[in-house]
Protein backbone atom coordinates (compact mmCIF):
# COMPACT_ATOMS: atom_id res chain seq x y z
CA UNK A 1 0.00 0.00 0.00
CA UNK A 2 1.21 3.47 -0.87
CA UNK A 3 0.03 6.26 1.39
CA UNK A 4 -1.23 9.52 -0.09
CA UNK A 5 -2.20 12.40 2.16
CA UNK A 6 -5.44 14.28 1.47
CA UNK A 7 -3.49 17.57 1.54
CA UNK A 8 -1.68 16.48 -1.59
CA UNK A 9 -4.96 15.68 -3.34
CA UNK A 10 -6.35 19.09 -2.35
CA UNK A 11 -3.28 20.92 -3.68
CA UNK A 12 -3.31 19.05 -6.99
CA UNK A 13 -7.04 19.70 -7.53
CA UNK A 14 -6.61 23.40 -6.70
CA UNK A 15 -3.73 23.79 -9.17
CA UNK A 16 -5.46 21.82 -11.93
CA UNK A 17 -8.57 24.03 -11.93
CA UNK A 18 -6.50 27.22 -11.89
CA UNK A 19 -4.33 25.90 -14.72
CA UNK A 20 -7.21 24.53 -16.83
CA UNK A 21 -9.14 27.79 -16.66
CA UNK A 22 -6.24 29.98 -17.79
CA UNK A 23 -4.19 27.80 -20.15
CA UNK A 24 -5.84 26.38 -23.22
CA UNK A 25 -4.33 23.12 -24.54
CA UNK A 26 -1.86 23.16 -27.43
CA UNK A 27 -4.14 20.86 -29.45
CA UNK A 28 -7.00 23.36 -29.24
CA UNK A 29 -4.71 26.27 -30.15
CA UNK A 30 -3.44 24.33 -33.18
CA UNK A 31 -7.05 23.78 -34.25
CA UNK A 32 -7.63 27.56 -33.96
CA UNK A 33 -4.62 28.14 -36.24
CA UNK A 34 -5.97 25.65 -38.73
CA UNK A 35 -9.31 27.53 -38.85
CA UNK A 36 -7.56 30.92 -39.19
CA UNK A 37 -5.81 29.48 -42.23
CA UNK A 38 -8.59 27.46 -43.81
CA UNK A 39 -12.02 28.97 -43.11
CA UNK A 40 -13.57 30.51 -46.24
CA UNK A 41 -15.39 33.21 -44.28
CA UNK A 42 -13.43 36.37 -43.45
CA UNK A 43 -15.68 36.94 -40.43
CA UNK A 44 -14.92 33.42 -39.21
CA UNK A 45 -11.19 33.98 -39.56
CA UNK A 46 -11.50 37.24 -37.61
CA UNK A 47 -13.38 35.51 -34.77
CA UNK A 48 -10.77 32.75 -34.64
CA UNK A 49 -8.01 35.35 -34.40
CA UNK A 50 -9.87 36.95 -31.48
CA UNK A 51 -10.07 33.58 -29.74
CA UNK A 52 -6.36 33.03 -30.25
CA UNK A 53 -5.58 36.48 -28.87
CA UNK A 54 -7.92 35.83 -25.94
CA UNK A 55 -6.06 32.61 -25.13
CA UNK A 56 -2.76 34.48 -25.25
CA UNK A 57 -3.99 37.17 -22.83
CA UNK A 58 -5.42 34.54 -20.48
CA UNK A 59 -2.13 32.62 -20.46
CA UNK A 60 0.09 35.67 -19.99
CA UNK A 61 -2.04 37.38 -17.35
CA UNK A 62 -3.12 34.18 -15.68
CA UNK A 63 -6.76 35.20 -16.06
CA UNK A 64 -9.66 32.94 -17.00
CA UNK A 65 -10.14 32.26 -20.73
CA UNK A 66 -13.88 32.65 -20.20
CA UNK A 67 -15.82 34.20 -17.31
CA UNK A 68 -17.80 30.96 -17.12
CA UNK A 69 -15.19 28.92 -15.32
CA UNK A 70 -17.65 26.09 -15.10
CA UNK A 71 -18.86 23.54 -12.66
CA UNK A 72 -15.90 21.54 -11.37
CA UNK A 73 -16.07 18.12 -13.01
CA UNK A 74 -13.39 15.56 -12.14
CA UNK A 75 -12.50 12.11 -13.41
CA UNK A 76 -10.42 10.31 -10.83
CA UNK A 77 -8.68 6.99 -11.42
CA UNK A 78 -7.78 5.70 -7.99
CA UNK A 79 -5.19 2.91 -7.82
CA UNK A 80 -6.42 0.05 -5.64
CA UNK A 81 -3.07 -0.05 -3.82
CA UNK A 82 -3.38 3.55 -2.60
CA UNK A 83 -4.23 4.19 1.02
CA UNK A 84 -5.59 7.71 1.54
CA UNK A 85 -4.64 9.23 4.87
CA UNK A 86 -5.32 12.52 6.62
CA UNK A 87 -9.06 12.77 6.05
CA UNK A 88 -11.98 12.21 3.76
CA UNK A 89 -11.22 11.79 0.03
CA UNK A 90 -14.30 13.67 -1.18
CA UNK A 91 -13.70 16.55 1.22
CA UNK A 92 -10.10 16.78 -0.02
CA UNK A 93 -11.33 17.25 -3.59
CA UNK A 94 -13.98 19.80 -2.64
CA UNK A 95 -11.37 21.71 -0.60
CA UNK A 96 -9.19 21.82 -3.71
CA UNK A 97 -12.05 23.15 -5.81
CA UNK A 98 -12.92 25.74 -3.15
CA UNK A 99 -9.30 26.94 -2.92
CA UNK A 100 -8.73 26.95 -6.67
CA UNK A 101 -11.85 29.01 -7.40
CA UNK A 102 -11.05 31.48 -4.60
CA UNK A 103 -7.31 31.88 -5.20
CA UNK A 104 -7.61 31.82 -8.99
CA UNK A 105 -10.32 34.54 -9.11
CA UNK A 106 -12.57 32.06 -10.89
CA UNK A 107 -16.32 32.55 -11.04
CA UNK A 108 -18.44 30.47 -8.70
CA UNK A 109 -21.31 29.13 -10.77
CA UNK A 110 -22.84 26.40 -8.57
CA UNK A 111 -26.34 27.18 -7.30
CA UNK A 112 -29.51 25.60 -5.93
CA UNK A 113 -31.70 24.48 -8.86
CA UNK A 114 -34.82 26.28 -7.62
CA UNK A 115 -33.90 29.15 -5.30
CA UNK A 116 -30.87 29.80 -7.58
CA UNK A 117 -28.89 30.67 -4.46
CA UNK A 118 -25.17 30.39 -5.17
CA UNK A 119 -23.30 27.85 -3.01
CA UNK A 120 -20.56 30.49 -2.83
CA UNK A 121 -17.46 28.38 -3.48
CA UNK A 122 -18.29 26.36 -6.61
CA UNK A 123 -18.72 23.16 -4.63
CA UNK A 124 -19.92 20.47 -4.69
CA UNK A 125 -17.55 19.13 -7.33
CA UNK A 126 -18.89 16.50 -9.70
CA UNK A 127 -16.63 13.50 -9.12
CA UNK A 128 -16.49 10.43 -11.35
CA UNK A 129 -14.41 7.83 -9.55
CA UNK A 130 -12.97 4.65 -10.99
CA UNK A 131 -10.85 2.11 -9.12
CA UNK A 132 -7.92 0.92 -11.27
CA UNK A 133 -4.89 -1.34 -10.73
CA UNK A 134 -1.73 0.26 -9.33
CA UNK A 135 -0.68 2.66 -6.58
CA UNK A 136 -1.21 6.02 -8.31
CA UNK A 137 -4.07 8.52 -8.41
CA UNK A 138 -4.80 10.12 -11.78
CA UNK A 139 -6.92 13.28 -11.53
CA UNK A 140 -8.45 14.93 -14.57
CA UNK A 141 -10.06 18.33 -14.03
CA UNK A 142 -12.72 19.53 -16.48
CA UNK A 143 -14.26 22.94 -15.77
CA UNK A 144 -17.53 22.69 -17.72
CA UNK A 145 -19.37 25.83 -18.81
CA UNK A 146 -23.15 26.10 -18.79
CA UNK A 147 -23.90 27.39 -22.29
CA UNK A 148 -22.64 24.36 -24.18
CA UNK A 149 -23.81 21.93 -21.49
CA UNK A 150 -27.36 23.25 -21.97
CA UNK A 151 -27.25 22.18 -25.63
CA UNK A 152 -26.35 18.57 -24.72
CA UNK A 153 -28.87 15.73 -24.94
CA UNK A 154 -29.41 12.06 -24.10
CA UNK A 155 -31.69 10.02 -26.34
CA UNK A 156 -32.72 6.37 -26.15
CA UNK A 157 -32.78 5.42 -29.82
CA UNK A 158 -34.52 2.42 -31.34
CA UNK A 159 -31.81 -0.14 -32.22
CA UNK A 160 -33.18 -0.34 -35.79
CA UNK A 161 -31.87 3.16 -36.62
CA UNK A 162 -28.27 1.88 -36.27
CA UNK A 163 -25.18 3.96 -36.79
CA UNK A 164 -26.89 6.10 -39.45
CA UNK A 165 -29.51 7.08 -36.88
CA UNK A 166 -26.74 8.00 -34.44
CA UNK A 167 -25.00 10.17 -37.05
CA UNK A 168 -28.22 11.97 -37.98
CA UNK A 169 -29.10 12.67 -34.36
CA UNK A 170 -25.67 14.15 -33.64
CA UNK A 171 -25.67 16.36 -36.75
CA UNK A 172 -29.19 17.59 -35.99
CA UNK A 173 -28.28 18.35 -32.40
CA UNK A 174 -25.38 20.52 -33.53
CA UNK A 175 -27.58 22.19 -36.15
CA UNK A 176 -30.36 22.95 -33.67
CA UNK A 177 -27.84 24.28 -31.14
CA UNK A 178 -26.71 26.81 -33.73
CA UNK A 179 -24.77 29.68 -32.22
CA UNK A 180 -25.74 28.94 -28.59
CA UNK A 181 -22.87 26.68 -27.43
CA UNK A 182 -20.07 29.04 -28.60
CA UNK A 183 -18.92 27.29 -31.77
CA UNK A 184 -16.47 26.06 -32.90
CA UNK A 185 -17.38 23.28 -30.51
CA UNK A 186 -15.95 19.91 -29.54
CA UNK A 187 -18.54 17.11 -29.47
CA UNK A 188 -18.42 14.15 -27.11
CA UNK A 189 -20.67 11.26 -28.14
CA UNK A 190 -21.44 8.33 -25.83
CA UNK A 191 -23.04 5.32 -27.49
CA UNK A 192 -24.26 2.26 -25.59
CA UNK A 193 -24.26 1.35 -21.92
CA UNK A 194 -27.36 2.53 -20.11
CA UNK A 195 -29.10 5.91 -19.92
CA UNK A 196 -26.58 7.37 -17.44
CA UNK A 197 -23.56 5.46 -18.78
CA UNK A 198 -23.96 6.99 -22.25
CA UNK A 199 -23.86 10.48 -20.74
CA UNK A 200 -20.74 9.65 -18.78
CA UNK A 201 -19.05 8.25 -21.91
CA UNK A 202 -19.92 11.43 -23.80
CA UNK A 203 -18.40 13.60 -21.09
CA UNK A 204 -15.28 11.44 -20.88
CA UNK A 205 -14.87 11.60 -24.66
CA UNK A 206 -14.19 15.35 -24.26
CA UNK A 207 -10.89 14.49 -22.56
CA UNK A 208 -9.43 13.23 -25.84
CA UNK A 209 -7.03 15.48 -27.74
CA UNK A 210 -8.15 17.22 -30.93
CA UNK A 211 -7.27 14.90 -33.80
CA UNK A 212 -7.41 11.65 -31.75
CA UNK A 213 -9.44 9.03 -33.58
CA UNK A 214 -11.29 6.11 -32.06
CA UNK A 215 -9.10 2.96 -32.30
CA UNK A 216 -11.91 1.08 -34.09
CA UNK A 217 -11.48 2.01 -37.78
CA UNK A 218 -15.24 1.86 -38.45
CA UNK A 219 -15.99 4.21 -35.57
CA UNK A 220 -13.10 6.47 -36.57
CA UNK A 221 -14.62 6.69 -40.06
CA UNK A 222 -17.99 7.61 -38.56
CA UNK A 223 -16.33 10.37 -36.49
CA UNK A 224 -14.74 11.82 -39.62
CA UNK A 225 -17.95 11.63 -41.59
CA UNK A 226 -20.02 13.35 -38.91
CA UNK A 227 -17.38 16.07 -38.41
CA UNK A 228 -17.45 16.72 -42.14
CA UNK A 229 -21.26 16.93 -42.16
CA UNK A 230 -21.24 19.30 -39.16
CA UNK A 231 -18.72 21.60 -40.82
CA UNK A 232 -20.91 21.74 -43.93
CA UNK A 233 -23.80 23.18 -41.91
CA UNK A 234 -22.38 26.67 -42.41
CA UNK A 235 -22.90 27.76 -38.76
CA UNK A 236 -19.24 28.71 -38.30
CA UNK A 237 -17.45 30.37 -35.38
CA UNK A 238 -19.96 32.16 -33.11
CA UNK A 239 -22.65 31.23 -35.62
CA UNK A 240 -21.71 34.13 -37.91
CA UNK A 241 -21.26 31.72 -40.86
CA UNK A 242 -18.26 29.65 -41.91
CA UNK A 243 -16.80 26.18 -42.29
CA UNK A 244 -15.53 25.75 -38.72
CA UNK A 245 -18.54 24.71 -36.65
CA UNK A 246 -16.79 21.96 -34.68
CA UNK A 247 -13.09 21.40 -34.07
CA UNK A 248 -13.52 17.66 -33.52
CA UNK A 249 -15.91 14.92 -32.51
CA UNK A 250 -15.18 11.89 -30.34
CA UNK A 251 -17.28 8.71 -30.23
CA UNK A 252 -17.04 6.31 -27.29
CA UNK A 253 -18.84 2.99 -27.72
CA UNK A 254 -19.79 0.27 -25.19
CA UNK A 255 -22.18 -2.70 -25.22
CA UNK A 256 -25.80 -1.96 -24.34
CA UNK A 257 -29.05 -3.82 -23.58
CA UNK A 258 -30.58 -5.92 -26.40
CA UNK A 259 -33.60 -3.58 -26.33
CA UNK A 260 -31.70 -0.29 -26.34
CA UNK A 261 -29.43 2.08 -28.22
CA UNK A 262 -28.55 4.83 -25.73
CA UNK A 263 -26.96 7.93 -27.24
CA UNK A 264 -25.60 10.99 -25.45
CA UNK A 265 -24.25 14.12 -27.10
CA UNK A 266 -22.21 16.35 -24.81
CA UNK A 267 -21.33 19.67 -26.39
CA UNK A 268 -18.21 21.54 -25.33
CA UNK A 269 -17.51 25.15 -26.32
CA UNK A 270 -14.26 26.15 -28.04
CA UNK A 271 -12.76 26.78 -24.57
CA UNK A 272 -12.18 23.03 -24.33
CA UNK A 273 -10.50 23.03 -20.94
CA UNK A 274 -9.07 19.99 -19.21
CA UNK A 275 -5.86 19.26 -17.33
CA UNK A 276 -4.59 16.16 -15.60
CA UNK A 277 -2.04 15.14 -13.02
CA UNK A 278 -0.81 11.90 -11.49
CA UNK A 279 -0.07 11.57 -7.78
Amino acid at each position, binding site marked *: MREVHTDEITNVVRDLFMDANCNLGEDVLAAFDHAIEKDESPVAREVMKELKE*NARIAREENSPICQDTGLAVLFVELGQDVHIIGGNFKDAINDGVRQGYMEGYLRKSACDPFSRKNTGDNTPAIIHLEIVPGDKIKIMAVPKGGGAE*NMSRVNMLTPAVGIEGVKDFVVNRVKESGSNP*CPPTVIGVGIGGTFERSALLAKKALLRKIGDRNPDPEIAKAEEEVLDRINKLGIGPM*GYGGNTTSLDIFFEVEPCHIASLPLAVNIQCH*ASRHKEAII
Partner: protein
Amino acid sequence: MSNKIELTTPLSTEDVEKLNIGDKVFLNGIIYTGRDAAHKRLIDLLNEGKELPIDVKGQIIYYMGPSPAKPGNPIGSAGPTTSYRMDAYAPKLIELGMKGMIGKGNRALEVIEAMKKYKAVYLGATGGAGALIAKSIKKAEIVAYEDLGPEAIRKLEVEDFPVVVINDTKGNDLYVEGAKKYSKE
Protein backbone atom coordinates in the same frame (compact mmCIF):
# COMPACT_ATOMS: atom_id res chain seq x y z
CA MET B 1 -18.79 41.92 -42.13
CA SER B 2 -19.56 45.19 -43.82
CA ASN B 3 -19.25 48.51 -42.01
CA LYS B 4 -17.25 49.54 -38.96
CA ILE B 5 -19.23 51.96 -36.83
CA GLU B 6 -18.58 53.79 -33.57
CA LEU B 7 -21.47 54.48 -31.23
CA THR B 8 -21.76 56.18 -27.87
CA THR B 9 -24.55 55.35 -25.43
CA PRO B 10 -27.33 56.24 -24.73
CA LEU B 11 -28.60 55.30 -28.19
CA SER B 12 -31.38 56.97 -30.16
CA THR B 13 -33.78 55.33 -32.58
CA GLU B 14 -31.76 56.91 -35.42
CA ASP B 15 -28.55 55.36 -34.06
CA VAL B 16 -29.94 51.85 -34.18
CA GLU B 17 -31.93 52.23 -37.40
CA LYS B 18 -28.76 52.76 -39.40
CA LEU B 19 -27.29 49.44 -38.27
CA ASN B 20 -27.37 46.35 -40.47
CA ILE B 21 -26.60 42.72 -39.71
CA GLY B 22 -22.90 41.96 -39.92
CA ASP B 23 -21.85 45.53 -39.07
CA LYS B 24 -18.97 45.67 -36.63
CA VAL B 25 -19.76 48.23 -33.93
CA PHE B 26 -17.44 49.72 -31.31
CA LEU B 27 -19.38 50.91 -28.27
CA ASN B 28 -18.37 53.73 -25.95
CA GLY B 29 -19.97 55.04 -22.79
CA ILE B 30 -22.14 53.25 -20.25
CA ILE B 31 -23.70 49.82 -20.62
CA TYR B 32 -25.48 47.74 -17.97
CA THR B 33 -25.16 44.04 -17.23
CA GLY B 34 -27.96 41.65 -16.37
CA ARG B 35 -28.57 37.91 -16.51
CA ASP B 36 -31.53 35.62 -15.74
CA ALA B 37 -31.94 36.37 -12.04
CA ALA B 38 -31.66 40.17 -12.42
CA HIS B 39 -34.09 40.16 -15.36
CA LYS B 40 -36.61 38.21 -13.34
CA ARG B 41 -36.45 40.81 -10.58
CA LEU B 42 -36.83 43.71 -13.07
CA ILE B 43 -39.91 42.17 -14.65
CA ASP B 44 -41.39 41.32 -11.22
CA LEU B 45 -41.02 45.01 -10.28
CA LEU B 46 -42.76 46.10 -13.48
CA ASN B 47 -45.59 43.65 -12.84
CA GLU B 48 -46.03 45.15 -9.37
CA GLY B 49 -46.12 48.63 -10.93
CA LYS B 50 -42.88 49.65 -9.22
CA GLU B 51 -39.93 51.65 -10.54
CA LEU B 52 -36.82 49.91 -11.90
CA PRO B 53 -33.41 50.44 -10.25
CA ILE B 54 -32.05 51.57 -13.65
CA ASP B 55 -33.69 53.61 -16.42
CA VAL B 56 -33.45 51.38 -19.50
CA LYS B 57 -34.44 54.09 -21.98
CA GLY B 58 -31.80 54.35 -24.70
CA GLN B 59 -29.62 51.87 -22.87
CA ILE B 60 -27.94 48.57 -23.68
CA ILE B 61 -28.05 45.52 -21.42
CA TYR B 62 -25.11 43.15 -21.67
CA TYR B 63 -25.93 39.55 -20.73
CA MET B 64 -22.84 38.89 -18.67
CA GLY B 65 -21.72 37.73 -15.23
CA PRO B 66 -17.99 38.38 -14.80
CA SER B 67 -15.36 36.35 -12.99
CA PRO B 68 -14.03 38.16 -9.89
CA ALA B 69 -11.73 41.14 -10.51
CA LYS B 70 -8.12 40.70 -9.52
CA PRO B 71 -6.69 43.51 -7.37
CA GLY B 72 -6.03 46.55 -9.58
CA ASN B 73 -8.42 45.50 -12.36
CA PRO B 74 -11.94 46.90 -12.83
CA ILE B 75 -13.37 43.49 -13.70
CA GLY B 76 -12.43 39.84 -14.29
CA SER B 77 -13.11 37.95 -17.52
CA ALA B 78 -16.26 39.37 -19.04
CA GLY B 79 -17.67 37.58 -22.09
CA PRO B 80 -21.34 37.15 -23.00
CA THR B 81 -23.70 34.45 -21.74
CA THR B 82 -26.31 32.70 -23.93
CA SER B 83 -29.16 35.09 -24.61
CA TYR B 84 -32.24 32.88 -25.05
CA ARG B 85 -32.64 32.65 -21.28
CA MET B 86 -33.53 36.35 -21.31
CA ASP B 87 -36.07 35.99 -24.16
CA ALA B 88 -39.03 35.86 -21.79
CA TYR B 89 -38.09 39.25 -20.32
CA ALA B 90 -36.55 41.18 -23.21
CA PRO B 91 -39.69 42.32 -25.16
CA LYS B 92 -41.02 44.21 -22.13
CA LEU B 93 -37.72 46.09 -21.67
CA ILE B 94 -37.55 46.87 -25.40
CA GLU B 95 -41.06 48.30 -25.16
CA LEU B 96 -39.81 50.55 -22.36
CA GLY B 97 -37.18 52.02 -24.68
CA MET B 98 -34.15 49.78 -24.26
CA LYS B 99 -32.18 50.10 -27.51
CA GLY B 100 -29.77 47.20 -27.41
CA MET B 101 -28.87 43.84 -25.97
CA ILE B 102 -25.44 42.22 -26.09
CA GLY B 103 -25.11 38.47 -25.84
CA LYS B 104 -24.57 35.37 -27.91
CA GLY B 105 -26.89 32.83 -29.45
CA ASN B 106 -30.31 32.80 -31.07
CA ARG B 107 -33.28 34.96 -29.98
CA ALA B 108 -36.96 34.04 -29.93
CA LEU B 109 -39.30 35.38 -32.58
CA GLU B 110 -41.06 37.57 -29.96
CA VAL B 111 -37.77 39.36 -29.24
CA ILE B 112 -37.01 39.88 -32.94
CA GLU B 113 -40.55 41.22 -33.47
CA ALA B 114 -40.18 43.61 -30.51
CA MET B 115 -36.87 44.89 -31.95
CA LYS B 116 -38.64 45.61 -35.25
CA LYS B 117 -41.64 47.26 -33.64
CA TYR B 118 -39.88 49.42 -31.05
CA LYS B 119 -36.53 49.84 -32.87
CA ALA B 120 -33.79 48.04 -31.00
CA VAL B 121 -30.86 45.81 -31.96
CA TYR B 122 -29.28 42.58 -30.76
CA LEU B 123 -25.49 42.68 -30.73
CA GLY B 124 -23.14 39.72 -30.49
CA ALA B 125 -19.96 39.73 -28.43
CA THR B 126 -17.47 36.91 -28.99
CA GLY B 127 -18.45 34.14 -26.59
CA GLY B 128 -15.56 32.69 -24.64
CA ALA B 129 -13.31 35.67 -25.29
CA GLY B 130 -13.75 36.95 -21.73
CA ALA B 131 -10.12 37.90 -21.12
CA LEU B 132 -9.96 39.92 -24.36
CA ILE B 133 -13.34 41.66 -23.88
CA ALA B 134 -12.37 42.73 -20.34
CA LYS B 135 -9.73 44.99 -21.93
CA SER B 136 -12.46 47.33 -23.23
CA ILE B 137 -14.15 47.67 -19.84
CA LYS B 138 -12.61 50.60 -17.98
CA LYS B 139 -14.85 50.79 -14.90
CA ALA B 140 -17.42 48.56 -13.26
CA GLU B 141 -19.73 49.20 -10.35
CA ILE B 142 -22.66 47.25 -8.94
CA VAL B 143 -25.84 49.33 -9.12
CA ALA B 144 -28.45 46.76 -8.06
CA TYR B 145 -28.93 43.29 -6.56
CA GLU B 146 -25.50 42.88 -5.01
CA ASP B 147 -26.77 39.68 -3.33
CA LEU B 148 -26.80 38.02 -6.76
CA GLY B 149 -22.99 38.01 -6.88
CA PRO B 150 -21.87 37.55 -10.50
CA GLU B 151 -25.49 38.10 -11.56
CA ALA B 152 -25.81 41.56 -9.96
CA ILE B 153 -26.59 44.51 -12.25
CA ARG B 154 -23.36 46.33 -13.04
CA LYS B 155 -22.81 49.68 -14.67
CA LEU B 156 -19.84 49.39 -17.03
CA GLU B 157 -17.86 52.15 -18.65
CA VAL B 158 -16.61 50.82 -21.97
CA GLU B 159 -14.18 51.98 -24.64
CA ASP B 160 -14.30 50.56 -28.16
CA PHE B 161 -16.24 47.55 -26.93
CA PRO B 162 -16.43 45.28 -30.01
CA VAL B 163 -19.76 43.79 -31.08
CA VAL B 164 -21.40 42.53 -34.28
CA VAL B 165 -25.00 43.31 -35.27
CA ILE B 166 -26.95 40.02 -35.21
CA ASN B 167 -30.54 41.29 -35.42
CA ASP B 168 -31.24 44.74 -36.85
CA THR B 169 -34.41 46.84 -36.72
CA LYS B 170 -35.58 45.40 -40.04
CA GLY B 171 -35.96 41.83 -38.82
CA ASN B 172 -32.79 40.46 -40.42
CA ASP B 173 -30.76 37.76 -38.66
CA LEU B 174 -27.00 37.30 -39.11
CA TYR B 175 -27.19 33.70 -37.84
CA VAL B 176 -29.67 32.78 -40.58
CA GLU B 177 -27.87 34.68 -43.35
CA GLY B 178 -24.38 33.58 -42.27
CA ALA B 179 -25.26 29.89 -42.21
CA LYS B 180 -27.09 30.19 -45.54
CA LYS B 181 -24.01 31.68 -47.17
CA TYR B 182 -21.60 28.96 -46.05
CA SER B 183 -23.91 25.91 -45.91
CA LYS B 184 -22.89 23.03 -48.18
CA GLU B 185 -25.68 20.69 -47.12
